[in-house]
């Protein structure tokens, strides 16, 4: 705090005019950012993180917002300090993209889908720097190299959808860096990405900051990322700043109750070290049902043998199948009653497909699935429908998996109706009981999904899955889209239900810390195969397969003293799972390194 800060936010207040009157986006926030410093802003969804940063760009106005009070002091390149609140939009345009760069949350949508990467990269350069086409292109190439995008020349001609999510996010970063801004605002730049890619991006940003000396305002709700990146941390809660301090202060001596609660809710990789069975997290302020470790049973419930699912790629004149996407390749495992098996792996490795294949929501090519003695693969349509009463699914996106036009009561009652329970009273009582079960107020039964928060929605989804008293629930990324605090609650809920009802879960996730917390067994998937399968403790404490080892390394740890460096990472891009029609992959063979701990010996492609 010795030198002059680049940006100072003083008593910012932002209001949105909506039909029902003004809504407060940010109530009262003040903090500053110094040159060369990374300030992380944390807080849960809706706490006003994005609004603060957009105010600094004066972009809130375009979303219907209005800066109702406070000052936004920005130190311009040529010395003068101006109040951005009072600057007019034409001057703002020379600052935006030029002196303040911004990286947005969603790499998928932040780029214009119909223009090439090159065009979008050079646009700002030509505007602010007055570069010619060639010069801008040269600079764009340089930028792409800087963010370590392979084959930068080719990328310039490509459209955003032709790049992978990680590459797209790097393009967005390159765009923000194009004019060498003095302040870089990164709004959740890695939330939507895989651990492995996230690790790379974080490392990249860290390096760029060191090399260029840019000040960075980093917005996230992921405490692990904060631990990895921040110099200073600002904690926000419901439109207010509740705490500010250096990263160590915040993590080690949190002052504010909210900060404490937040930290308690973060699962940390390695916390479960030495424990065989999962146990619920201890959360602040929520009365715990203290269930202790959940042991499960030894009675097998679900047996999956040699499950193989491929999607046909059709092409040519007669739409013949020319190739197959080998989404799930020869996967076998057994899940016991009352236990949780987690499937982890990078995006696209076939986790969801495996889960859906078990329920026959996609038709597998081959394999054998047995649920409680019923051969699922042999069932006809009607039988399958009946069998599904025993196996339910919870989906990743709590919003997308609920019908926006239906009241929650009807949505939770739907499975019951499908299986012939039509008595209105009975239905109502049953649904009410389910709502109690997942700790939702009964008054919510008449609401619509959009009237609930993400965590509440996911509980509704769980209630729906529980409606038929299933034996098995496939939870496909069931907590990935949730805030940490909410995520912790949902996880606890799931574990409590398991303890009480003896449910079994197939838990699909890419978040290693969460997986560590909830699973009895873990299967690591890569390119359609399980490369390593075994009890959680064995797999996490003694990873055998090189891919598992790399994955474990990439996970950020919510501890500022255990930062990773870029050198630790060595990821290769995942090879294509598409193979021509005639291709017959080798069967999966495993080596049992310790009891129940299997490691793939067949070539997995890694």
């Amino acid at each position: 705090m010795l030198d002059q800060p680049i940006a100072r936010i003083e008593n910012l207040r932002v209001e949105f005019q909506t039909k029902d009157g003004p809504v407060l986006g940010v109530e009262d926030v003040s903090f500053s950012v110094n040159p060369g410093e990374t300030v992380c802003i944390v807080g849960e969804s809706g706490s006003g993180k994005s609004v603060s940063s957009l105010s600094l760009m004066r972009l809130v106005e375009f979303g219907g917002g209005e800066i109702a009070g406070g000052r936004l002091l920005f130190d311009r390149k040529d010395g003068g300090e101006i109040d951005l609140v009072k600057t007019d939009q034409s001057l703002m345009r020379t600052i935006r993209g030029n002196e303040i760069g911004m990286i947005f949350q969603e790499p998928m949508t932040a780029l214009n889908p119909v223009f090439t990467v090159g065009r979008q990269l050079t646009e700002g350069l030509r505007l602010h720097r007055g570069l010619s086409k060639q010069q801008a292109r040269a600079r764009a190439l340089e930028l792409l190299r800087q963010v370590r995008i392979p084959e930068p020349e080719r990328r310039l001609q490509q459209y955003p959808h032709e790049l992978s999510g990680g590459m797209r996010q790097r393009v967005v970063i390159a765009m923000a860096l194009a004019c060498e801004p003095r302040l870089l605002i990164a709004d959740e730049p890695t939330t939507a990405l895989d651990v492995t890619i996230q690790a790379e991006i974080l490392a990249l940003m860290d390096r760029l900051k060191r090399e260029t000396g840019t000040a960075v305002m980093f917005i996230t709700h992921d405490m692990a990322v904060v631990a990895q990146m921040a110099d200073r941390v600002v904690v926000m809660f419901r439109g207010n700043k509740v705490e500010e301090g250096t990263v160590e202060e915040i993590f080690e001596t949190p002052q504010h109750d909210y900060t404490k609660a937040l930290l308690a809710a973060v699962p940390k990789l390695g916390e479960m070290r030495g424990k065989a069975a999962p146990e619920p997290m201890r959360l602040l302020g929520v009365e715990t049902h203290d269930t202790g470790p959940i042991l499960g049973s030894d009675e097998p419930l679900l047996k999956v043998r040699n499950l193989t699912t491929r999607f046909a790629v059709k092409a040519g004149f007669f739409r013949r199948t020319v190739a197959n996407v080998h989404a799930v390749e020869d996967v076998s495992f057994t899940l016991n009653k009352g236990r949780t098996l987690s499937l982890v792996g990078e995006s696209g490795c076939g986790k969801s497909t495996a889960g859906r294949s078990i329920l026959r929501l996609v038709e597998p090519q081959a394999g054998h699935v047995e649920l409680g003695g019923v051969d699922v693969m042999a069932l006809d349509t009607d039988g399958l429908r009946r069998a599904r009463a025993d196996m339910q699914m919870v989906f990743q996106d709590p919003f997308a998996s609920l019908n926006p036009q239906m009241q929650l009561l009807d949505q939770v009652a739907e499975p019951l109706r499908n299986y012939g329970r039509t008595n209105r009273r009975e239905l109502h009582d049953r649904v009410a009981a389910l709502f109690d079960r997942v700790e939702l107020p009964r008054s919510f039964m008449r609401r619509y999904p959009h009237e609930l928060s993400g965590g509440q929605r996911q509980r509704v989804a769980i209630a729906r899955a529980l409606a038929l008293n299933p034996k098995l629930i496939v939870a496909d990324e069931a907590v990935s889209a949730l805030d940490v605090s909410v995520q912790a609650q949902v996880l606890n809920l799931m574990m409590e239900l398991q303890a009480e009802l003896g449910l079994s879960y197939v838990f699909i996730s890419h978040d290693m810390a969460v997986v560590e917390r909830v699973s009895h067994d873990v299967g690591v998937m890569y390119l359609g195969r399980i490369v390593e399968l075994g009890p959680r403790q064995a797999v996490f404490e003694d990873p055998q397969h090189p891919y598992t080892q790399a994955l474990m390394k990439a996970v950020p740890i919510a501890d500022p003293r255990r930062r990773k460096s870029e050198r630790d990472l060595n990821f290769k891009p995942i090879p294509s799972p598409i193979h021509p029609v005639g291709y017959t992959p080798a069967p999966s063979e495993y080596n049992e390194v310790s009891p129940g701990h299997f490691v793939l010996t067949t070539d997995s492609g890694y």
Partner: protein
Amino acid sequence: MTDPTPDKITPIAALQDTAPLRPPRSQWRDVWDQLKHHKGAMLGGGFLLFVTLAVLFGELIWQLDPKKLDIRNKDIRPIFSAIWDSAAKVDWAHPLGTDNLGRDHLAQILAGGRASMAVGWAAMLLTMLIGTTIGVLAGFFRRLDGPLMRFTDLVLSLPILPLMLVAVTLFRQPLRANFGPETGMFILIVGVIGVTSWMQTARIVRGDILALKEREFVLAARASGTTARNIIFRHLLPNVLSPIMVSATLGLATAIITESALSFLGVGFPSDFPTWGKMLADAVPRMQEFPERVMLPGIMISVTVLSVNYLGDGLRDALDPRIRGR
């Protein structure tokens, strides 16, 4: 250095979901509440209600027979034309004047409105029914998609006039026998308009269903054992309501206009059966001398269409719980 902690934040509150505070209400009350706030919808709905009541019950108040000729009182100008033209032939007995055969214009507007509105609504409903059915089937069942879309192309290229003539040849007699000449023709016209104007709706609905089908809640419904039928009725249809409403408002206008074009081309209702479209068409040659004869039915058609459009806008917003919640 840090701000003082506001007292109201307790850790318990911190980890609890931010619950919306409003108490639950019944669904239809909600829709109505929302609709009430939409000025356009209220105006449009009010006008529509007024017109509907007027055409239904107007003849009880204004009891002149629209078909009654009174040749001595022909070509009377509407009462208001006396304001600027003191020489105009006006008569309080015919506030909107009479036509070239002395039929009372007000009575005709009322009777014509009944026919036009009925044709408009019925044809629109039929159009929506066919369009939605075909669109949903094509979008939902992959196998039906190709054939149904080709079928749509086929109907698109059918000329409406020969179709109308064929329909008249084949069905007029049985319909007349069962329903009488006017209702019979009404069914025929509504049928033909319905059968030839559902294609746009079908295309739109199909596109939306194709996209909705991939949404996770449909998969979730399937996973919880919902049958295809129920998926369509419970999950897909309510979600395509909004594009259907848009087509419906346009469909109503198109139906009224198509009916008038059919009359114009000579294949519509019996000649002594007034509709707004036909009144407009008949009055066009005399529009210089008697502008009110084109203006009145013209205004009625336009304003009705506008009202339906605004009401549709409002209903669309009101029926969507996402918008309603705001």
